[in-house]
């Protein structure tokens, strides 16, 4: 497990030292959300109605922003070749990189989401479910994204391809994330939606590292 921790630690160090990838992602998220009141007007009822959807769509796009680099830089400087030859199974390495990616992007998004929710007049009763849904949903974004990032490794203009590949797969997270966040303000229970998000997370945890590792091996041959 030492090697697992070393890989998570290195990726976090790189994320925070390299001009702050995480800061770009958080800033993009904030800006994208703040653009909406300018676009649709400042009426509180309208903003409150669309707030959950806006927050989740912006979070999805923000998470996508940083995915292209997930394996790209390791691939370019020869680190990926060396990593594939390390004793730690590649599946666990993919999981370690997802964890680091989530800590550097998904977690900051979850932390600032409630603040941005206030800007959109989001119903304060739904705040707990919003944070819980983000906590369960954003790791899925990192995990599914890692598969896409591994598959598009080395492709020309991989970023566009990555979005086309990954965004459709994000739809279930979007649906249940929004449903969980809105439930409280509409008088429904958020619990079923949160449980479905948890199920998505467990499924992604079980499948994504294997799929990403297989794609990485393919890329290295």
């Amino acid at each position, binding site marked *: 497990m030492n090697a697992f921790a070393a890989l998570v630690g290195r990726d976090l*160090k790189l994320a925070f030292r390299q001009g702050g990838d995480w800061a770009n992602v958080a800033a993009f998220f904030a800006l994208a959300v703040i653009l909406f009141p300018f676009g649709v007007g400042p009426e509180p009822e309208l903003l409150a109605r669309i707030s959950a959807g806006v927050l989740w769509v912006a979070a999805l796009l923000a998470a996508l922003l940083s995915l292209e680099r997930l394996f790209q830089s390791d691939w370019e400087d*020869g680190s990926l070749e060396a990593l594939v030859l*390390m004793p730690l199974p590649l599946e666990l390495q993919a999981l370690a990189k997802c964890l680091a990616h989530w800590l550097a992007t998904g977690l900051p998004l979850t932390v600032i989401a409630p603040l941005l929710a206030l800007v959109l007049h989001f119903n304060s009763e739904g705040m707990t479910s919003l944070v819980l849904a983000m906590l369960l949903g954003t790791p899925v974004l990192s995990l599914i994204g890692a598969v896409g990032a591994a598959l598009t490794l080395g492709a020309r203009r991989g970023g566009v391809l990555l979005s086309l590949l990954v965004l459709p797969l994000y739809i279930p997270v979007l649906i249940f994330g929004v449903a969980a966040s809105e439930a409280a303000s509409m008088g429904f229970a958020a619990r079923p939606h949160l449980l479905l998000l948890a199920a998505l997370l467990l499924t992604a945890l079980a499948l994504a590292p294997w799929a990403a590792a297989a794609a990485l091996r393919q890329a290295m041959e």
Partner: protein
Amino acid sequence: MFRGLSFSLARGGALLLAGPNGSGKTSLLRMLSGLTPPEDGQILWRGSPISLDPAAHRARLHFIGHQDALKPALTARENLAFWAEMRGGTRRGADAALKSFRLDARADWPCRYLSAGEKRRLALARLVASKAWLWLLDEPATGLDAQALANLRTAISAHRRQGGCVVAATHAPLILAEASVLSLADFAPRRAA
């Protein structure tokens, strides 16, 4: 790429791969590492094919490719300690390895400030920072000065004295004692005339 190629290495053995550009030196090294499976034929370690237990094979080898696999934002020490820890090594082992390639004065420099030769030395220091039986080196001497080359020779001979094996592809005069030389051009598939 090549056919009819066969060789074996004993404990402490060294093999230099020679041949013009594109003759398959890197491809052969990648096959020996398990990165690329050979189209035909097999690679044995102590009598059993490496493809049977790829994890065990990965644990016993060091592969230094022609790229240095260093992160510009991390210091020399952090880069080396990371690779050592990935293979069960320690930070202390990494520090000793820095010293053996005369990089201790650069230990806390971010790698983006290192020269090409220093980066190469740092990549080679991975060999010493954690243990492995088989060293696969792709053009290890690129950019090395005479003294760094001597450091590399010292590291290789210490490794061989302990029973380790080395396979190196190189154009540089990396002369190793009692090393066999394999000229890959001799095994190129003949074109039908």
